[in-house]
């Protein structure tokens, strides 16, 4: 069978999502049988952008002009473009300070030293190109990545998840950290699929997978408020991973 040509690129991000893929060690031999990783600068050299791709997996948000060029190039050359991880899907932590004065922010970090590249407000991929599928998470779940790739070999894109972290948390019969322990858990508003990884260990959900479809923010804010977490606190926390959360 002909191998699928795949491009894997990282934009503004920590490379953790690409690493999540490389961490699928048991499956790597199988992956190399099915996929030709033609463009994967983080893992394979040389990294030459050439020809067409069956799929491009892109990690990170956009914050520099050359990233926009790369993304547009990948979009043109790929049948499917897939946003890989929270930064690509929602903007992520790089977009945390969106809305603030960029020159001031630059000075906070670099002082008066010159900066190598021009930057702009970080954007999730869907603001610039058509995204065919998304695998969210910081980083994405290994299982989700492997299912995505296995699906691609059949020409299928993943089915979206429509339930919040709470759903899987309840299925695991966990103590509810929000209602029973008054902890600041964002499970109610956050997309599931992680198996309630953090709350299962007694750690409140940080919202790293971004918003669940049909999130009821108004009612959730009421509940958080009853627990002593005000609107600003909740929105600030939500926007750490998804700056597009709005009232």
């Amino acid at each position, binding site marked *: 069978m002909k191998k699928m040509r795949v491009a894997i690129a990282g934009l503004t991000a920590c490379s953790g999502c690409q690493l999540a893929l490389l961490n699928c060690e048991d499956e790597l031999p199988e992956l190399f049988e*099915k996929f030709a990783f033609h463009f994967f600068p983080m893992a394979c050299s040389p990294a030459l952008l050439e020809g067409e791709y069956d799929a491009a997996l892109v990690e990170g948000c956009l914050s520099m002009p050359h990233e926009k060029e790369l993304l547009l190039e990948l979009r043109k050359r790929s049948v499917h473009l897939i946003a890989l991880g929270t930064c690509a899907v929602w903007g992520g932590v790089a977009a945390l300070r969106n809305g603030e004065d960029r020159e001031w922010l630059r000075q906070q970090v670099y002082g008066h030293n010159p900066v190598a590249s021009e930057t702009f407000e970080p954007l999730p991929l869907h603001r610039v190109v058509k995204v065919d599928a998304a695998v969210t998470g910081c980083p994405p779940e290994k299982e989700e990545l492997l299912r995505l790739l296995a699906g691609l070999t059949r020409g299928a894109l993943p*089915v979206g998840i429509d*339930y*919040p972290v709470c*759903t899987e948390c309840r299925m695991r019969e*966990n103590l509810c950290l929000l209602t029973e322990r008054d902890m600041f858990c964002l499970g109610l508003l956050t997309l599931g699929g992680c198996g309630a990884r953090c709350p299962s260990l007694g750690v409140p959900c940080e919202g790293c997978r971004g918003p669940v479809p049909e999130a009821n923010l108004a009612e959730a804010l009421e509940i958080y408020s009853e627990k002593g977490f005000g609107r600003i606190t909740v929105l600030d926390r939500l926007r750490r991973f998804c700056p597009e959360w709005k009232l």
Partner: protein
Amino acid sequence: MAPQYIASHNLAALLDRLRRYGELHGPVRGDDEVVRFAAIAPGTLPDLSALRTLLPPKKYLLHPQETILNYTAAAGYQMPAEEVRPLILFGVHPCDLAGINYLDRVFLGDAPDPLYAARRSALTLIGISCTPDEFCSCHISPSPLNALTDLSLQSLADGYAISSGSPRGDELLEGVKEILEERDIAVPEDTRRFFGQVAAEPLRQELDATLPDWQTLADACLGCGACSICCPTCYCFDVLEFGGLDGRSAVRLRQWDNCLLKCHAEVAGGMSFQKNRAERFRYRYRHKFRGFGPLQGIPSCVGCGRCRVVCPAGLDLRPLAERLDEGRHEQ
């Protein structure tokens, strides 16, 4: 014959003897204070003071997520080989027993579900009496479902009246008889009496879609699914199939679903039979309080109160049910 009696101090001995018949599970309080049905460790007692576990016993019969078929190119689709071992559930309250009765009607009906049937036949149910709290509603709306047990324990001052409800129960009683006594005691009625009641004439009219209650409920619902996950009779499931990386294998999964979620009524092409949460609440209400399909007229709510306890928004369908039932002749 005088009722059989077991003294409280003999409970540990009873549990030890029951272990001979299978793995013994019951309500166990965890370090996090959550009470769950779980294995009762030898030398420990279950928590019989708790009125409800977080998940009902349905988790043993219908797992939250499970493989229902495996595909390989050589063998095609195959049922997973599951070793089903005898399981004894100790300390099950009448509402949960009625919940199992409902699941039996669904999964052992016309086309029995093989996984469910195998697990169910390996299950021994030992019920225990309880006193309803403010979240319970078994005593408010009697149910036509049956709270059937193999053995039943009814709390008395210093022990339990114990009785059999099946040939399996007779066998167990025989096996533990050396720690039982016959006592001339008055056995009080327990909450089992609210079950197995004659069902009211099923209401066949469609629920009024214009009732403002559906939207009021929808506005407060967070869509977390806790109500149905924790419901002893919510059995809706989703079926997902994932092909393997090798291109020659696949696994088909079944996982708990929830009628308040977006995907529940979605079909190919992204169409949906229930586009918004208000419509989904009407559907949920219908299933819980009117019943549908072959179980039309059999409400599936057994009054355990879990949905009210776990809902982060404190939603409760009961007041609406009471109002609609009162006005049922006017509808």
